[in-house]
C-alpha cells in the first residue's frame, strides 16, 4: 500500500486514465487504421489490397473531390465572413445598456442548436419547396413573383445551405461574443468617449481589440466546425443538384457507405485530417487559444 503522498502523486494519473484509455481505443487506433486503409483498396470484404499512394493520386484528380473541397471552402468562408460578424453585431445589440429581456433574446437565438438538425433540415426543406414553400410564398406576397428553385438550381442550392448555416449557428456564436463584451470594463468606453471617440471609433479601438481572445476562439470553432459540415447539405439537398452542395465530409460518407470504397474514403479522411489539423494548429499558434492566460 503506497503512502499518502504516493497515492496523491498517482491520483491525477488515475483520474485522467479513463479519458486516455478511450482516447487510445477510439481515436488513436482508428486514425492508425484509417492511415493503413488509405493505402489499400477495400470494399469491406476479404483482405484489403495494398495499393500504395494510388488513392491519393486518384483523389487529386477526382473532380468530385475537388468540387467537395471548393464547396467546403465556400462554406468556411461564408461562416467566417458572414456568420461570425452577424453574431458579433447581434451580441453588440444585446449588450446595449439598459436592454430589457436580454436573457429572453439570448435564449431564443440560441434555440436552433438545441434542436435536432434533422428536424430543422426537414422544416427548411419544406420552406424551400419551389411550389408550396414559405419562402417563395413570401416573395410572391411582397414582390408578386417567387419562382426561385431554392434546392434545384446549383447556385441557389448553395445559398440555401448557407442560409441554414446562418440560421442554425449565429445565435450559438452570439453567446460567446456577448460573454466577451460583458467582460470589457466600462471605464475603457468612458475613457474613449472623453477622448471624443464616437461609437464607430470606440468599436474599432476598444471593442475589437478587447474581444480578440473570444474572436479567436469563435473563429477557430467556426473554421474547424464548418470544415466538417455534413448535416446541412446532406439533409437539405443530398449534396445536389449534381454535386453543387457536396462537402468533403459528405464525400467521405458517400465513398465509404454508398460506394463501398473504404480505402478511398479513408484517404479522403486523411487529407481532411491534415487540412483541419493545420488550420487548428495555425490558429492556435496565432491566437494562443486554450493556453492559460
Amino acid at each position: 500500500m503506497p503512502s499518502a503522498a504516493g497515492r496523491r502523486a498517482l491520483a491525477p494519473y488515475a483520474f485522467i486514465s479513463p479519458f486516455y484509455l478511450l482516447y487510445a481505443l477510439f481515436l488513436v487506433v482508428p486514425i492508425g487504421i484509417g492511415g493503413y486503409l488509405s493505402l489499400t483498396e477495400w470494399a469491406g470484404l476479404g483482405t484489403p489490397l495494398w495499393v500504395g499512394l494510388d488513392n491519393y493520386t486518384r483523389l487529386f484528380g477526382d473532380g468530385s473531390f475537388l468540387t467537395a473541397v471548393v464547396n467546403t471552402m465556400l462554406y468556411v468562408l461564408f461562416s467566417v465572413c458572414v456568420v461570425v460578424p452577424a453574431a458579433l453585431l447581434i451580441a453588440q445589440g444585446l449588450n446595449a445598456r439598459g436592454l430589457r429581456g436580454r436573457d429572453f433574446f439570448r435564449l431564443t437565438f440560441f434555440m436552433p442548436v438545441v434542436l435536432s438538425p434533422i428536424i430543422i433540415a426537414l422544416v427548411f426543406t419544406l420552406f424551400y419547396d419551389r411550389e408550396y414553400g414559405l419562402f417563395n410564398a413570401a416573395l410572391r406576397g411582397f414582390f408578386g413573383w417567387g419562382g426561385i428553385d431554392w434546392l434545384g438550381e446549383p447556385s441557389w442550392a448553395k445559398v440555401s445551405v448557407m442560409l441554414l448555416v446562418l440560421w442554425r449557428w449565429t445565435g450559438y456564436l452570439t453567446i460567446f461574443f456577448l460573454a466577451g463584451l460583458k467582460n470589457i470594463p466600462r471605464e475603457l468606453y468612458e475613457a474613449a468617449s472623453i477622448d471624443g471617440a464616437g461609437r464607430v471609433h470606440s468599436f474599432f479601438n476598444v471593442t475589437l481589440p478587447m474581444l480578440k481572445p473570444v474572436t479567436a476562439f469563435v473563429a477557430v470553432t467556426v473554421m474547424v466546425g464548418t470544415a466538417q459540415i455534413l448535416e446541412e447539405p446532406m439533409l437539405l439537398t443530398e449534396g445536389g443538384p449534381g454535386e453543387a452542395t457536396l462537402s468533403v465530409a459528405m464525400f467521405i460518407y458517400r465513398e465509404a457507405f454508398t460506394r463501398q470504397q473504404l480505402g478511398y474514403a479513408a484517404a479522403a479522411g486523411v487529407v481532411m485530417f491534415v487540412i483541419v489539423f493545420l488550420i487548428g494548429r495555425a490558429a492556435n499558434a496565432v491566437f494562443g487559444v486554450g493556453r492559460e492566460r
Partner: protein
Amino acid sequence: MSASHARRVPAGPATRRPRLVYVLLIALVVMFVLPLLWALSSSFKHRGDIFTYPPQPLPSPFTLENYTRLLETQPFWGWFATSTIVAVVSTAVSVFVCALAGFAFAKYRFRGKRLLFDVMFSSMAVPFAVIVVPLFVMLIKAGVTNVYFSLIVPWVAPAFGIFMMRQYAEQAVPDSVLEAARIDGASEFGLFTRVVLPLLRPALGALAVWSFLNSYNSFFWPLIVVSDPAQYTLPLGIQSLYAAEARQVDLVLAGSVLAAIPSLIMFILLRKQLLDGLTAGAVKS
C-alpha cells in the same frame, strides 16, 4: 443595475438607439421562432392543408390525426426509448469521466501534465468524418453488434468536456478546502466525490445538457452503425419517414414536435448553466 445606469444617460441619440435595437432584436426573434411555430402549427393540420397559398397561420380545422397516426403506425416510442437511453447513459458517464479528468488537470501538479493536456486539447481538432470509416470497420471486425455499445462508448470522453471542467474547477475549488479534507483523512477519490463534485455542480449541469443534446440529436453516427429499423433512434426514425416513397410530411412534423420536447425541456431547465458553462472557457483563455 443597468436600469439605473440607463437613466443617467442623457437624452438624445442614446435613447433613440435602444428602440432601434429592440426593433432589430424582435425581428430576429421572429426569424428564429417562426420556422418552429410553423412546424408546430402545421403538425395539427390535415395533410392537404400543410401547403396552401396563401399559407394559413393556424390550423383550421384543427386535428390530432397526425399524432395518432404516427403513434399507431410507427414504432415511435421505440425510437424514443433508444434515443433517451443512449443519451442518458452517455451523459452520466461522460459527465463523470470529464469531471474527474478536469479536476486532475486543474488541481494537481504532475509530470507530463502540459503535454497530456495539449494532446487532449488538440484531439478536439480531429474531424469526426476522419475516424468514422476506420471506427466503423474496427467495430465490425471486433464483432461488436450491440447498438448501445456502438452509440455510447466511443463518445463518452469528449475533450471539450474536460476542458470545460478544468476551467471551472480551477476557480471553483479552493486549494484550502482540499487540504482540509486531506487532513481529515479523505482519500483522493473520496475528495473528488465528496468535496469536488458538489463544488462543480453548475459546470456538471452545463456539461450534462451539452452531452445530452449532442447524443440525443446525433444523426450521422447512428446512420452508419444502426441498420436494423427496429433499433432506430429518433432522428433516424424521422428521417426514414421523410425518405419513404410518399414523403409523409404530416407524420414527420408530428414526430419532430414530439422529438423536440425533451431537448427543449432540458435546455429550458438548465439554460443558465449551459450558456455560462459554454462561454466560461472561451472568455477566460
